[in-house]
């Protein structure tokens, strides 16, 4: 295998003392920017970029990609501990990670998340190693109709299920689409829904929305419920970290399925965010304990985390081979490639073998370094949960305010973030699901662009979504996922018409309340 030989050569480049030191520095910095919401991987990487101009391209990309791994891991920490996702792709981790941490098991939640994330990343790198050229071809097959079909699949796998009433899910989705539409429309070039506020032309930043909806929203609920017991007495135990990681293989099917979804979405490139949502949605439907999702279920953490990292890793491949960045961070790194004098594109694999294979080898080593470092920090982070609510609550407010402001140095963002906090609170009180709202905010405008581009290409005919086997199978898969619950429900109602008439007991209701996130 030619690739294997190249990879071994890559290892001789990546595994040198200066490069290992760079990896450790990169990962530590990455964890730091990942943990601080509002900073995040793209900002962290662009801050570090000027420092790399004097370096060898291989050393520079190793430093930056290690920072990326660190930030991906770090982003999960705040999602799990404080319900504040630092990156769009770690939103789905909050659904079960946060309830589990609040339950007094922050160590388990963090260790599970990191372990499965490392597995996802590993699968992603293996895919890159052996299928690089094939993968590049697959990505080229994706035009606007195919993109739309992928986004549709992501929506479909998440909608039409869960504890909330279907109509509430639809309402949440619709509000999300409306928020995503704010700003300049790519297809017509006109300004939409700015409501007379000039600055809104930039659109609503995802970070602003999510920090309000989750961070502040959760805080308001907690204050109302007088959550004094928030200082969770979590045991700080290395054995617990170890046990959580060892227990992972028991969820082999969930791991493999999520890694497959992640790789697929990373290549296509639907991106890590869509991947994590889709993986969570599908796990919830197919897992034996799917009914308990949202209450701190292990597989509810494994699924989004594995898919997120598998997608985040494999997203680097289209960047290198085609010059399309699969994520915001990849876009910044691509800018770096150009400044170092390299041109991302099909020739990189031919012209710059040392660079490409050094990078791929460093993904193996860098991820191992990252997961080792991050597992060491678990007890420290878990200890944060012991801090009483009266101290942690103002800290969360400060983090959210600073995070929202630093997105684009704008006070409007802070005001909007607080507004989203109120919306998050109202959603929770009225049992509206937040997940569809967030999903629509994140990929709603992309889905819309892809749909309208398709319509331009086909001159308004929907037939374009059934024009070739690829797009047809994607659309059919999406429709199946969307209609399956409905069909099952109809079948269920037809078979047992009497049971349906019974009112839900108090137990069901309390469960629904817990599951609403």
């Amino acid at each position, binding site marked *: 295998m030619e690739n294997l030989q190249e990879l071994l050569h890559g290892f001789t480049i990546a595994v040198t003392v200066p490069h290992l030191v760079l990896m450790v520095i990169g990962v530590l910095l990455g964890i730091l920017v990942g943990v601080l919401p509002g900073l995040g991987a793209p900002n962290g990487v662009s801050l570090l970029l000027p420092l790399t101009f004097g370096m060898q391209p291989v050393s520079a990309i190793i430093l930056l990609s290690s920072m990326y791994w660190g930030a991906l891991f770090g982003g999960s920490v705040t999602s799990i501990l404080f319900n504040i996702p630092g990156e769009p792709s770690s939103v789905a981790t909050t659904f079960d990670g946060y309830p589990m941490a609040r339950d007094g098991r922050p160590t388990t939640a963090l260790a599970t998340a990191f372990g499965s994330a490392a597995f996802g990343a590993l699968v992603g790198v293996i895919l890159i190693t052996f299928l690089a050229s094939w993968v590049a071809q697959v990505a080229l097959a994706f035009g606007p109709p195919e993109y739309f079909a992928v986004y549709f699949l992501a929506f479909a796998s998440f909608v039409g299920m869960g504890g909330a009433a279907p109509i509430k899910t639809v309402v949440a989705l619709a509000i999300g689409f409306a928020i995503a539409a704010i700003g300049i429309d790519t297809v017509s*070039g006109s300004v939409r829904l700015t409501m007379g506020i000039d600055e809104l*032309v930039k*659109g609503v930043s995802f970070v602003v929305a999510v920090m309000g909806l989750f961070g502040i929203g959760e805080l308001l609920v907690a204050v109302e419920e007088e959550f004094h017991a928030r200082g969770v007495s979590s045991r700080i135990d290395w054995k617990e970290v170890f046990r959580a990681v060892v227990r992972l293989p028991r969820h082999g099917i969930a791991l493999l399925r999520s890694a497959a979804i992640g790789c697929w979405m990373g290549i296509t490139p639907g991106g890590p965010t869509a991947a994590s949502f889709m993986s969570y949605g599908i796990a919830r439907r197919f897992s034996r304990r799917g009914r308990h999702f949202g209450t701190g279920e292990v597989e509810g953490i494994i699924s989004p985390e594995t898919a997120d990292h598998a997608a985040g890793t494999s997203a680097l491949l289209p960047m290198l081979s085609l010059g399309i960045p699969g994520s915001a961070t990849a876009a910044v790194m691509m800018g770096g490639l150009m400044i170092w004098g390299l041109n991302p594109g099909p*020739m990189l694999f031919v012209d710059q073998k040392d660079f490409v294979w050094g990078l791929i080898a460093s993904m193996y080593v860098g991820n191992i370094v990252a997961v080792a470092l991050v597992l060491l920090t678990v007890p420290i982070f878990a200890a944060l949960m012991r801090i009483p609510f009266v101290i942690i609550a103002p800290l969360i407010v400060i983090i959210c305010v600073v995070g929202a402001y*630093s997105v684009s140095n704008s006070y409007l963002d802070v005001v909007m973030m607080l507004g989203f906090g109120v919306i998050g609170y109202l959603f929770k009180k009225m049992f509206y699901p937040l997940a569809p709202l967030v999903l629509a905010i994140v990929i709603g405008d992309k889905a819309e662009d892809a749909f309208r581009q398709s319509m331009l290409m086909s001159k308004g005919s929907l037939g374009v979504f059934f024009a070739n086997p690829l797009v047809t199978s994607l659309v059919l898969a999406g429709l199946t996922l969307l209609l399956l619950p409905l069909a099952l429900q109809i079948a269920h109602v037809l078979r047992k018409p009497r049971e349906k008439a019974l009112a839900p007991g108090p137990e069901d209701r309390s469960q629904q309340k817990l599951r609403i996130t």
Partner: protein
Amino acid sequence: MDVTSRFLLPAAAILLAGTIPAGAAWQPQKPIEFVATAGPGGGTDNLARAVQNIITKYKLTDQPIVVVNKGGGSGAEGYVYGKASAADPHKVIFGTSNAWQQPLVSKVAFNYTDLTPIAAMAQDEFLLWVKQDAPYKTVSDYLKAAAANEFKMGGAQSKDTDEVLTRMMEKVGHIKLTYIPFKSGAEAAVQLAGGHIDSHVNNPSESLGQWRGGTQRPLCVFSPKRLSQGPKVTATEGWSDVPTCVEQGLDISQYEQPRTVWLPGKVTPEQTTFYVELMKKVRATPEWKDYIEKTSQVDTFLTGAEFDSYIKQDLEHIKQVAAEQGWLVK
């Protein structure tokens, strides 16, 4: 970054303020903010960061420089920010011709008259690109094929430079094109490589990697003369081997994307002069030449009355195209 810089930089500024000789021409008193009206990694962002690096390396000013990206709304976010910062000479806005084009076609809350023009530094060229294995080798083949079968033309954004050029091609070449707007030129390049569109009009740096990789090739350049000879891009060809569109019978002799630099409105003439001189010093460095060559741009520099008349001329032209297409907003 923003938090620390907000804290530390003013402190540094206070220290440095004492070193400026009294009575000299205007000098910045605070850290300078470079506002790129594009996201990280794009052409405008690259320019802002290249200028920042050169100024810092040669210590052309005492004040530190921070680059901020405000690329929302196709760049409108950055211009609106510039308008809101009137009379603040410590904010420099980096953009393109959309500073005057965007207000024509979309209801954005700024106009280029709200800003103080500093200079147009460097011009990016446009080329007509087709898929590598497309049957047409010349522009006239392309036009013939496009006349028989409506082609799909991809580009970055809607009613922006790419679409304006597309509409000009329709008129001059007597063809009809379906324009599909994408988020960026890079996206359009990948769509062309996959065969989802028939052509696009990317800048050289947006499609350089794709040309080298053999997924697409340029048919002609929208420029009065051929591009300057750089290193070969593919095994046999370089930029200077690409014929001009006029040579090939498509009569659009000049179309380019100026990279523009602005101050907010209501600044003093001394402050404007300071930045014009600063940019002139930047241009004189070898790093600038290197940047121009790597990004395959043309090294032009327009300032003062020249820049003003350039804007007026371009504006008249865009107005005409926009009016024909029914794009104008009140």
